[in-house]
């Protein structure tokens, strides 16, 4: 019997080793996501995994973060998200260049909360931030980029995913005007997604206001169908802030429509995101068959003020592991295992790579059966030996071997 592995050699709760082919899929998806970010002009930044604990202000995020102390006894956090560190970076490093700052990242984040509830303590977020512009065109631009990314990776809008879009300023504006006394409580209840509590609070108010407070967060429907916006306008009445927020949302939808149909975009006036964080457009992406959000984002015009630069900002973060789990199966890249301890084998491997064939050179003299076993263990489709005049190529699953010139292998294995 194998000895029991000591506990300290396992990975810590909520973390894991990622092995091929999953790791390959994850990094492939990351590369394709970052390529789309670049196509839209977002440039990558890398922030440290450790931040002073003061950088993150939101109590829930602070609570969920892993904490440690540096030699000066300062409390540090492992970043639980990337938007705040990027905001810090913008305020500290970029104040001498003109806004807007369009930055992207793909970094691991760390959270204690959720471990034991099927959520990881370490996961990757890929996202963009457009800092320094309040234009609805920027909101629409980042939303369009997110949809572009999802489509590029093979997800169909409306069928495989839906982007749920809200406007946090609409309900907040309405409440501030119509029922300022209960506004904070109602917004806190809605941030907790507790519509029952919203109803309870509304009961103390006069019927017309109470009805609006109850019904606005329940307005959900396809963006292509204009009636959701109309009903929202009806509930808002003559409230100026709410009207401005609605106009902002209409503009965002106009921009999006200029690029393509609004398939897969849903409006939800109950979506306000984290408590007291989003100040305008706010959105979440859901993939069918997945209970959690794949991506989320929105406008957060108050965050940068903390770092001494009151700049408006908008952006999103994609949860890469969740995204990968929602992606359609994709054929892995081909791989040839070239077997042989000889100098000829080394030369043949190099020649194959010159013609863009991925080659794993196994510098041992292994008999074909063992070589095929090995090839299958590394998900390689082909086994190959150096031969006079070229290489002897055979499928790893068994079958006829054939002698090919090195230059002809690419045509055979890369379809």
């Amino acid at each position: 019997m194998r000895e029991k592995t000591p506990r300290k050699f396992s990975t810590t709760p909520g973390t894991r080793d990622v092995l091929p082919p999953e790791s390959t899929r994850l990094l492939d998806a990351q590369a394709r996501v970052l390529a789309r970010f670049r196509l839209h002009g977002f440039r990558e930044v890398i922030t440290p995994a450790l931040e002073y604990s003061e950088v993150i202000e939101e109590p829930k995020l602070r609570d969920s973060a892993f904490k440690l102390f540096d030699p000066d006894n300062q409390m540090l956090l492992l970043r639980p998200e990337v938007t705040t560190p990027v905001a810090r970076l913008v305020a500290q490093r970029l104040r001498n260049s003109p806004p807007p700052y369009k930055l992207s990242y793909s970094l691991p984040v760390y959270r204690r909360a959720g471990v034991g509830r099927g959520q990881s303590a370490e996961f990757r977020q890929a996202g963009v931030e457009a800092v320094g512009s309040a234009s609805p065109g920027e909101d629409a631009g980042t939303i369009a980029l997110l949809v572009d990314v999802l489509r590029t990776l093979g997800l169909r809008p409306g069928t495989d995913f839906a982007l749920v879009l809200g406007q946090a300023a609409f309900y907040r504006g309405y409440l501030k005007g119509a029922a300022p006394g209960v506004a904070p409580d109602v917004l806190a209840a809605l941030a907790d997604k507790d519509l029952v509590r919203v109803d309870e609070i509304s009961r103390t108010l006069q019927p017309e206001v109470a009805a609006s407070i109850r019904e606005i967060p329940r307005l959900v429907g396809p963006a292509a169908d204009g009636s959701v916006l109309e009903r929202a306008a009806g509930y808002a009445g003559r409230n100026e802030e709410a009207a401005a927020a609605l106009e902002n949302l209409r503009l965002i939808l106009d921009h999006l429509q200029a690029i393509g149909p609004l398939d897969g975009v849903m409006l939800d006036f109950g979506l306000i995101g984290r408590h007291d964080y989003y100040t305008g457009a706010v959105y979440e992406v859901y993939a069918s068959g997945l209970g959690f959000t794949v991506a989320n984002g929105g406008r957060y015009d108050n965050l940068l003020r903390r770092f001494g630069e009151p700049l408006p900002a908008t952006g999103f973060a994609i949860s890469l592991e969740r995204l990968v789990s929602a992606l359609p199966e994709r054929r892995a890249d081909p791989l040839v295992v070239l077997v042989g301890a000889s100098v000829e084998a080394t030369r043949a491997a190099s020649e194959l790579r010159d013609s863009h064939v991925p080659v794993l050179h196994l510098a041992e003299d292994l008999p074909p059966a063992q070589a095929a076993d090995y090839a299958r263990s590394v998900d390689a489709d082909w086994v190959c030996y150096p031969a006079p005049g070229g290489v002897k190529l055979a499928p790893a699953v068994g079958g006829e071997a054939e002698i090919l010139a090195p230059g002809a292998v690419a045509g055979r294995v890369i379809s």
Partner: protein
Amino acid sequence: MRGLRVAVPKGAIFEDALAALESAGMPVGVLRDDGRRLLYRADGAEFIMSRPSDVPVFVEHGAADIGIVGKDVLDEQRPNVMELRDLGTGACQMVLAAPRTKVEEVRRSIDHAEVVRVGTKFPNVARRYFEGMGRQAEVIELHGSVELAPLVGLAECIVDLTATGTTLRENDLVVMDEISSSTARLIANRGSYRLRHREVAGLIEAMNRNGDRVG
């Protein structure tokens, strides 16, 4: 596409949950036939039978689209789900209770901010309750028969759920404070609420139309 998958709680609020779903026109008849199965299918809809405290877990992960569960469970777990409707049934109170002979002693301890030992199935609720008052408690988490704890000296008082107060009376326990009241709630997965909004909204509408008559 399959119909909605519903997490139905076994135990005290099972019948109330069925009545609510029935009022919305869901084919819940199959659930009454045979009490041992865990998964039922009828007319495209699916029903998961689960412990009440597991209902939010199924729903949060999207393993069920919607579920019915007491507010007490939601208060304890604080799951990331949509809380859509108060079904008004299964009413009960979360209370602080102590043995009749110890009530004054416990009250004095709490008043003087001494540490009291609390037995409970709801450790988060208990902790928040005492923290909210600025008082200290040592919370002992139990999984059943919480009433026993103060009788054998495991705890000085308990935080527990009571509907009629019978069990408390039988064990000579007295309610010292009402912490919160609870009723059954309809909850939904965040994704299902949006992706299948028409079905979920239709269900709620039907409940609103018929539910009050039944419930």
